[in-house]
């Protein structure tokens, strides 16, 4: 008995410092790099969030909460934003974290390399650092969206002393990151796992509770479900198992399926109509197609309830900006048929009016079945749909380069400010330039382009909201894209895993996670 007890203590030597626990998580697919400042892909963010702290975190209401910045203020004229940094935060190699790191990363990474931040931080003309713990962003025009972006994922700060003067994209620290967060990077065995260990010098001495986090790479969806069922894994974000498995796993006593923690992402599913195509250039046809699709059934049947019907391209998870009064297209196949007749596309002798190709984003079965659901819906009003499959590289080339499609199903993250995630689908300057996740429909509207540029410089919150509402009404009137669903991504986790939920938990830190002993 004594022997067994001493063995137990020996095998958990770190018990005295942390909780002595190892959390095993899944990251899927395998990240390309571990630096979210340079690679904004989802798996990189999932791992990177525990290694790097952000200036702030976001609550489920998307309001910023102190992180590396203890406080911040925006000047009344909106032309400067001041961050007061935490004293005593250090990089994992012991070098103090200071305002110089913020300034260097903003000027060299966010403004030059980061795909989203080049726009978000475009109006920053200078960063002043009056002392080591104060960073003042001087702006040429007010940029409200900045304060919605500065968490560890949206605007990750890199260590200036390890990056300055190097080839940033090829810096070896991209794959063995040195951060400021609660966990220190230990090793990355490609194809197998990534290990993080407790940061003993974290500024918040009481944290983290976990001693170690292991991210396993499990490429097969069925194997991921099996690993959860067996208890080999306790956490995986970003809908790690097929929806039908999620329903089953959520009923097991040792597991929990959580849909909160994605508010900062706010994913929405939509159909792009190629407005340069002969049938689809007629707005009556686009409206007719919209009225033939039963969105509630799509949410229930295809998405197993992990979605709700969308009414506007700005999801209701952004309550400040969302407009519920936009023109709506309720299910009405009769009206749809009348619209198509009116547009001059009457049913032929075989009952069919015309036929369209539909391409879906190849991120799993759910998107394919969405395509098949739409095919079945449109057949009822005499529109034949041919569902086509391809891999991601071929898909983005088809939509954003060749524009060789009729209807395309895809999803975007709206992010906390629609300027960051939504307007890109409507901005005419990006059409056909082969830049993934921009305007695929080919919609050109000068008024919309003006709104898109106005919201970037508008300091007055109320006026900005008014502009976004105008934007939503116009694009729902013209309907170049049809918002289908607001997706509810989910996390599968062990039921004895305890943690508060933030609005950006998906890319957040394991800092506050604890594992409760199972009662049995």
């Amino acid at each position, binding site marked *: 008995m004594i022997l067994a007890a001493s063995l137990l203590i020996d095998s958990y030597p770190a018990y005295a410092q942390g909780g002595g626990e190892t959390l095993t998580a899944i990251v899927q697919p395998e990240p*390309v790099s571990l630096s979210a400042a340079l690679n904004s892909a989802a798996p990189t963010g999932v791992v990177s969030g525990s290694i790097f702290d952000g200036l702030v975190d976001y609550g489920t209401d998307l309001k910023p909460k102190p992180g590396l910045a203890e406080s911040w203020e925006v000047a009344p004229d909106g032309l400067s934003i001041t961050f007061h940094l935490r004293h005593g935060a250090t990089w994992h190699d012991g070098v103090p974290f200071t305002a110089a790191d913020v300034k260097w990363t903003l000027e060299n990474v966010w403004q030059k390399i980061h*795909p989203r931040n080049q726009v978000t931080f475009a109006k920053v003309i200078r960063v002043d650092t009056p002392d080591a713990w104060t960073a003042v962003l001087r702006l040429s025009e007010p940029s409200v969206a900045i304060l919605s972006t500065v968490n560890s994922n949206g605007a990750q700060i890199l260590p200036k002393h390890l990056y300055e003067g190097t080839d940033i994209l090829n810096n070896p620290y991209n794959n063995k990151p040195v951060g400021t967060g609660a966990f220190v990077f230990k090793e990355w065995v490609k194809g197998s796992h990534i290990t993080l260990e407790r940061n003993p010098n974290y500024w918040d001495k009481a944290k983290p509770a976990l001693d170690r986090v292991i991210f396993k790479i499990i490429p097969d969806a069925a194997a991921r479900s099996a690993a959860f069922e*067996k208890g080999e894994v306790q956490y995986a974000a970003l809908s790690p198992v097929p929806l039908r498995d999620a329903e089953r796993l959520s009923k097991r006593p040792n597991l929990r399926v959580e849909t909160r923690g994605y508010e900062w992402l706010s994913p929405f599913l939509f159909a792009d109509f190629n407005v340069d195509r002969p049938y689809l250039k007629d707005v009556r046809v686009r409206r007719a197609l919209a009225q033939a699709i039963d969105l509630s059934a799509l949410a229930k049947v295809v998405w197993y309830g992990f979605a709700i019907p969308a009414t506007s391209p700005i999801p209701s998870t952004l309550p400040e900006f969302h407009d519920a009064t936009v023109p709506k297209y309720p299910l009405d196949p009769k009206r749809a048929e009348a619209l198509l007749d009116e547009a001059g596309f009457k049913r032929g002798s075989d009952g069919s009016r015309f036929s369209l190709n539909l391409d879906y984003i190849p991120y799993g079965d759910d998107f394919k079945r969405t395509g098949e659901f739409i095919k079945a819906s449109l057949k009822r009003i005499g529109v034949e749909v041919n569902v086509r499959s391809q891999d991601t590289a071929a898909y983005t080339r088809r939509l954003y380069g060749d524009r060789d499609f009729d209807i395309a199903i895809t999803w975007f993250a709206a992010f906390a400010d629609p300027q960051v995630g939504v307007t890109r689908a409507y901005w005419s300057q990006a059409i056909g330039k082969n*830049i993934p*996740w921009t305007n695929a429909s080919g919609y050109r509207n000068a008024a919309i382009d003006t709104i898109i540029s106005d919201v970037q410089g508008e300091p007055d919150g109320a006026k900005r909201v008014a502009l976004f509402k105008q934007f939503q009404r116009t694009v729902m009137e013209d309907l170049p894209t049809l918002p289908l669903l607001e997706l509810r991504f989910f996390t599968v986790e062990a039921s004895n895993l305890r943690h508060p939920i933030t609005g950006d938990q998906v890319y957040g830190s394991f800092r506050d996670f604890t594992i409760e002993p199972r009662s049995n």
Partner: protein
Amino acid sequence: MSAVGLIQRLAPGVRWARRLAQIAFIVIGIATVNFFLLHLAPGDAAEVMAGEAGAATPEFMAALREQFGLDQPLYIQFGKYLGNVLTLNLGYSFRQGLPVSRLILDRLPATALLMAASITFALVAGAALGFLAARRAGHLTDTIISVIALLFYATPVFWIGVVLIVIFSVWLDWLPVGGMATIEAGYQGTAYALDVGRHLVLPAVTLGLFHLAIYTRLTRASMLQIYGQDFVRTAVAKGVAPGRIAVRHVLRNALLPIVTMLGMQLGSILGGAILVETVFSWPGLGRLAFEALFQRDLNLLLGILLASSILVVVVNIAVDLAYGFLDPRVEIS
């Protein structure tokens, strides 16, 4: 003696030189076809990375393309690639930020272990079952073995993999779901080897079952054919014990087609490994190749394909040599 025969007998060196030239020619041919075939695929590595990032700007894409060398015309890219192949340099994977040879060598041990285990399992178990079936031809044992072999032959590999996981990992809880080791435990030495062994069982069996079925059928068929030959009848007439006839006279002579099959299995194993490595999260080369294809990481993919085409050519030579060893009547030309 003809002139050709003279050269062959006098100068094995010339024969080998000709053979090496053939190998080089074949490998370069494969490399060329691979290069152009893969460049037909729509999209490139920069688009994939921008696609994964969820956002991009034209400047970001241009910077990536320049870094990857994708901004250059195809013939220059091909010239560089061919130069690399001729100097046995596999190139650099920009996506992974590592030389291709290093990436392949990192993953090779895992795949080699899986391959060795599954081939050994398939060969030994397949030959044993085939041997048993041939000796009991027409009896119930034969029927049962043949039905089982047919079942394994006809069932898709990934499905078998998932079913084995559900039965042996989830229900019975005997074996781990996937991966190559229990990382959390941090085993060393013998404990580590045993742990890897436990993780190896299911993927090796899954990968081996299809070929087990082939070896079973092949052994059975070729043994039955040899049972009908005169020298076997003579041995029976001499009063040699049936077990000894089966092993010494029949099985040994039935091995030739199995060696041929073994060569083919070695050549095709990378393809099978893609599925099995994916289902069992085995960190091997097959998955690396599969992911490289979707990521349009052509340097990496071309490197893996080149390495495996060299492997196939070498295995073919080894099989030819093995023929001569097993059956002295076969001449190697």
